[in-house]
């Protein structure tokens, strides 16, 4: 439905604008601890209340959105492009190349990359800025996240390369590169888009989970991952409804991305 897409685009623009204007919109610095008001309920000073250290949650959501909304799609883009390139190339060329590349992909999928992340963190100086370390984490995630999709893309590309369509194109003189660019990549788009928008929440949640190992964002910088970790003890009963706002925002943004990217998939 057209209007669903329009609403989604509107929402994304709104969220992007809000986080770009965070400096003006935030009622308080995201790192400032209001020590008299830990875990406060929403009020006109603190729209979403405060977290367990007394920091204004609304400000943290704004700045956290900036971090996550910038970095997660960038990492997702990186991993989708890598998957498309590697899987597409292998599937299209076929033969030995495909087998070797796919075996390497399977190997890549199986290795414990956690240790690479830990090693990279160790190489970074201790006094590195929080933003730098989170950018590096997401960049690594982007470089490591392509393997799962590459296989599906490879199978797809292989099928495509053996289709009548391509035979015709070849017969009419289209060379390899032209074929790739004009025909293969557009055909792979649906899968690439699927991979892209699925990767966004996966990377955000991975960053949240890596926080358990100290590989996530460093204090006091907020990110959606760190905001979501607040919810982990929701069963303690002290979790208030407004603490779910980051999660709801997260779901809304991811759904919007999805709706925007899946334009003409379903035949009319």
């Amino acid at each position: 439905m057209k209007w669903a897409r329009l609403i989604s685009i509107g929402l994304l623009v709104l969220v992007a604008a809000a986080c770009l204007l965070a400096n003006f919109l935030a009622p308080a610095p995201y790192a400032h601890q209001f020590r008299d008001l830990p875990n406060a309920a929403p009020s006109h000073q603190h729209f979403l209340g405060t977290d367990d250290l007394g920091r204004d949650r609304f400000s943290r959501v704004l700045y956290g959105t900036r971090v996550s909304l910038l970095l997660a799609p960038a990492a997702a883009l990186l991993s989708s492009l890598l998957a498309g390139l590697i899987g597409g190339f292998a599937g299209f060329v076929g033969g030995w190349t495909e087998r070797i590349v796919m075996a390497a992909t399977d190997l890549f999928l199986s290795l414990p990359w956690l240790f690479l992340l830990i090693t990279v963190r160790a190489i970074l100086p201790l006094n590195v800025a929080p933003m730098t370390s989170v950018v590096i984490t997401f960049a690594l995630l982007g470089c490591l996240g392509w393997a799962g999709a590459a296989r599906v893309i490879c199978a797809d590309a292989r099928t495509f390369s053996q289709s009548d369509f391509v035979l015709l194109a070849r017969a009419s003189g289209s060379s390899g590169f032209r074929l790739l660019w004009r025909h293969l990549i557009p055909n792979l788009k649906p899968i690439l888009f699927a991979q892209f928008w699925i990767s966004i929440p996966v990377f955000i949640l991975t960053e949240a989970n890596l926080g358990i190992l100290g590989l996530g964002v460093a204090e006091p910088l907020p990110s959606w991952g760190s905001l979501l970790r607040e919810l982990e003890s929701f069963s303690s009963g002290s979790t208030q409804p407004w603490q779910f706002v980051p999660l709801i925002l997260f779901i809304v943004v991811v759904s919007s991305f999805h709706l925007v990217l899946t334009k003409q998939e379903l035949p009319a």
Partner: protein
Amino acid sequence: MKKLFAVIVFAIFAVSVALAQAGGELRFCLHSEPKTFNPVLMEDDSSETIRYLTGGVLMRVNRQTQEVEPELATSWKITDSGRTITFQLRKDLRFSDGTQFSAADVAFTMQQLMDPALHSPTGDSFRSGDGKVETRVLAKDRVAITFPAPISGLDKLFDQVAIMSATSPLKEMAVLGPYVVAENKAGAYLILKRNPNYWKHDGNGRQLPYIDSVRLDIQQNRDIEMVRLTHGEIDFINSLDAEYFDKLASSDPAMAHDAGVSLDTEFMWFNQVQNSPLPAYKKAWFTSTNFRHAISESINRSDMARIAFRGHAQAAIGPVSPANKFWFNAKLQPHPFDQKAALQLLAQDGFRMQGDTLHDRDGHAVEFSIITNAGNKYRERMATMMQQDLSGIGIKLNVVTLDFPSLIERMTRTFDYETCLLGLVNTDLDPNSVMNVWLSSSENHQWNPSQKTPATQWEAEIDRLMKDQASTLDPNQRKASFDKVQEIVWQQEPFIYLVNKNALSAVSTSVRNVHPVALRPQVYWNIDQLSLTSEVARNH
């Protein structure tokens, strides 16, 4: 018909009253899989829990009164100025598999414990000097153990020595304690059943323990553990998080127990290792007492206790918690929170504020990092609070959370860190148990380990005082020496002590005779006297 009905009801009532104090299964969670069942090798929490539940010891420190009580030994005598201890053992006792207990088993256990190849931590507590530990079996029920050098607080150390059988074919699985390991599904759960040969009886002559079996589920996730408690799937949580305590206190106050301040401390320290990879100007900062004092006075400890621990902690003064009544130096004053005074102290060392940032005398902006173990919510909060506190005197603190092995590597191998925030879990009251923290030559002297000669005059003084307190048996003399150590630590602040946590636990109301205390194990220290009410409506 009515009469029959009444008789049946009465019978059920009578039976249930009789059963009220017997049987049942106590269920709680271990946070990791026990690594070994050999009591001599036990080092991790879970294995030590098993040892407490299954091992028979010669004497037990009563966790409530903090006094030593006889167990397998009916009496003992310390002679030879603390070098020899002679035990009179109970007669006619058997291990869980029926093997006879005698002095030979004590001798065997000591021999295993002191085996130099095993490096048992409990054994190291007994290693007062070079030379062998000699055990003489004087009779079937009398044994004398002689140590190469005197050990102060010798009797209390035997609380950790679970006696193993020298002759049983089951080896370490034959035990003298209230329970014996019956089932072990690796990684999932353990079931302990009552030891049929347990020697203890209650006042009415009934054999202990009252509870038939204990089920230990291996559950690392504290949130899930809490849910299971409220659902009635487990009976208690031995050490509870502050958030859950608050929730429980409001919904089910009878279940929430705050036993007061515990022995645990949270503290931070600066890296003072001479050949660490830090730049020289930072080493100069960290080795300056004025600097450390200033940092200590800039940290708002009461806010930390109030916010990071939800009020279930108190500001720490020194290495010993006030819960350790005898050894705590009550004369020490709490560290003030006074950022103005801190800046004055820093000015003495040439530090100056330029705008919002503090600079040292060479113009370097004061910025350093603090490492702590990731996943510990309390420490992450404390570090973040310190970040704000120190920005008040112009210092930029970077919080770096690391996974534990990376942290240990930096702390003990590479010395590539600036400050570290950790805590110490103390199970023992006696300062001898932390000797290796205070001796400058020790590997565990965290801020500057393994010194060939003491790097500072005050560290040399601490060395001397610690050795003094270990070499005399007179408790008052020992206290005088150790009090002096606490004073020096207060003045020099190699460790900046932050808070002492409270001992929080949650116990289901169906467990009777439970008296949670501050010493570990907080809830089940009197396991053989706990009982369960037989609740028909209890959901398993």
